[in-house]
């Protein structure tokens, strides 16, 4: 069943509609919401929600509960390759919880929150941005870590990154839902404007496994691997100091040692290497820059400390 959960008239000839699909079977009342498309340049969630939706419809007898799929919280953004909300230059994930009688965007955000609330669990799928590639991971803020880590471990991701909470992040969908009683996991994976099929398959197994654990799935699930946990591990940030073209000489997922050469920033005009980029710490490269043009400050890589012999990817 497809339903419009929020709508607003646009100036000329059309309305902005936020739609969801409900897949339901059996007598179970457990409800899982899969949401994505808050950032219009992040597309990994489009394929993942397609995979989950089409599989459940084919194996509907195995479902006992309710799955709500919200593929596009920012449909105009996805339609026009715009990260924020077109026309407003607004990051939609800084407008939650919205308000009933606010601006168009606030009203829509409010309707989205109201519609998702009541779910037992929500998974909000993001895919980095066009600049950086990320391993499949779940990001959790410190205050919610204890409650969410057991569920995050069911999702077949490679990493659970527990980060400090910041006031500015109180305006995210995940913070809003978590603070109002719907446990919400934020997935980050892949890279903007692209679909990484293997990550979508990996998360597909994770979603089915989560459903199994929530008692909503009677079918089989594939083996799940246990993610690394960022707690008590150093995360090294490698930022560019120079401006130019970044060319890495390591691969995404490689294990590196502190000081190891991981790439160069080059200047095609002067034919010079303007910066030798070295690893700031030991560990695996779990974030790597995809977009080559850099300024001083551009993030080039993140390195997660690993123990001897620890396998990740």
């Amino acid at each position, binding site marked *: 069943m497809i339903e419009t959960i929020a709508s*607003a*008239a*646009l*100036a*000329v*000839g059309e309305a*902005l509609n936020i739609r969801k699909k409900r897949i339901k079977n059996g007598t179970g009342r457990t409800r899982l919401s899969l949401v994505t498309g808050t950032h219009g340049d992040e597309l990994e969630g489009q394929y993942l929600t397609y995979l989950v939706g089409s599989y459940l419809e084919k194996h509907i007898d195995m479902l006992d509960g309710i799955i709500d799929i919200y593929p596009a919280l920012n449909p105009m953004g996805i339609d026009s390759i715009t*990260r*924020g909300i077109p026309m*407003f*230059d*607004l990051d939609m994930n*800084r407008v939650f919880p919205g308000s009933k*009688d*606010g*601006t*168009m965007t606030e*009203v829509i955000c409010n309707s989205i929150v109201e519609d998702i609330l009541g779910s037992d669990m929500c998974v909000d799928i993001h895919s980095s*941005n066009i*600049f950086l590639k990320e391993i499949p991971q779940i990001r959790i803020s410190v205050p919610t870590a204890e409650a969410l880590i057991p569920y995050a471990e069911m999702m077949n991701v490679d990493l659970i990154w527990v980060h400090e909470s910041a*006031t*500015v*992040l*109180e*305006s995210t969908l995940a913070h809003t839902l978590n603070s109002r009683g719907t446990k919400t996991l934020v997935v980050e994976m892949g890279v903007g404007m692209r679909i990484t099929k293997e990550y979508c398959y990996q998360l597909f197994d994770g979603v089915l496994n989560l459903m199994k654990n929530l008692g909503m799935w009677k079918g089989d699930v594939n083996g799940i691997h246990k993610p690394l946990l960022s707690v008590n591990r150093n995360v090294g*940030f490698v*930022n560019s100091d*120079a*401006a*130019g*073209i970044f060319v890495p000489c390591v691969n995404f997922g490689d294990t590196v040692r502190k000081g190891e050469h991981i790439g160069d920033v080059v*200047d095609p005009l002067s034919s010079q290497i303007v910066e030798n980029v070295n690893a700031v710490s030991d560990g695996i490269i779990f974030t790597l820059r995809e977009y080559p*043009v*850099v*300024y*001083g*400050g*551009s*993030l080039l890589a993140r390195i997660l400390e690993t123990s001897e012999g620890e396998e990740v990817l």
Partner: protein
Amino acid sequence: MKKSILFSLRSPYREQLDVYGYTFGHGRKTLAIVGAMRGNEVQQMYVCSRLVREMKKTEAAGKIADDCEIMIIPCVNYYSMNIGKRFWAMDNTDINRMFPGYDQGETTQRIADGLFRNLQGYEYGIQFASFYQQGNFLPHVKLMDTGFTDSELMKDFGLRYGIIRRPRPYDTTTLNYNWQIWETKAFSVYANATDTIDEDSADEVFYAVLRFMKNRDIADTKVQPGFSTDLINESETHQVQSEKAGIFTSAVDIGKYAETGDILGRITDPFDGEIISEIRSPISGTVYFEYQNPLINENTVCFKIIKG
């Protein structure tokens, strides 16, 4: 006057971005003024440039108070200005959402950091701000209420209204908010237009800043007395939103008084021209904001009214 580079950033293909500060007077850091942090804040840069010119004359005439230093930064983000973008062009981030900044962080965090290091320690801070929506404002001064700055100080600008805003989570990374956390009494001054230059309101805020300097004994310039400022909580102002979408026309001028029920604007169907909505004032008061764009969506703030 001293012109100095406060912060520089190299670009892969363009001339280096140099953020300039103009300082006047000597001694205690008394007042810092920041203009355009976004690429469309032309009016904000323009007002600053006029202040720089005025302060040159004021300094030459010996009218800046002893032991007072004033710094003016007309434009931070001219990179975006020169290519018609509002935010940092590479990643569309907003410098005014990056404070206090981080010198090891992303590009706009580094810019915010470089700027903020130079802005700390001033007793007063003024930022020429702009609204995210296209529209006209009655020039006013706004205070982000962190509990640090005395709202009565807004009266020294002599603008008609001083508006007190309760900070929301997304305000905590703005310059105004962080200035106050670092103990600078900070104000945002709104000067009507953004992308264009509006001489009348530029005049109004130019003189308001000079008035503030005079009333605070920072610099003595010739300036006429202003209004006696009404201080208002932002939550007490009334927003009027569009109930329909289509072509918008305003029927009032900002600064005008509207009675309850007066027509403020109209929305017509973009295809057949029929009037589909008459926007009427829900209260009696002064119109201090009007939306300015021929096209309007549903639930868009089209007027703001101060009761009374």
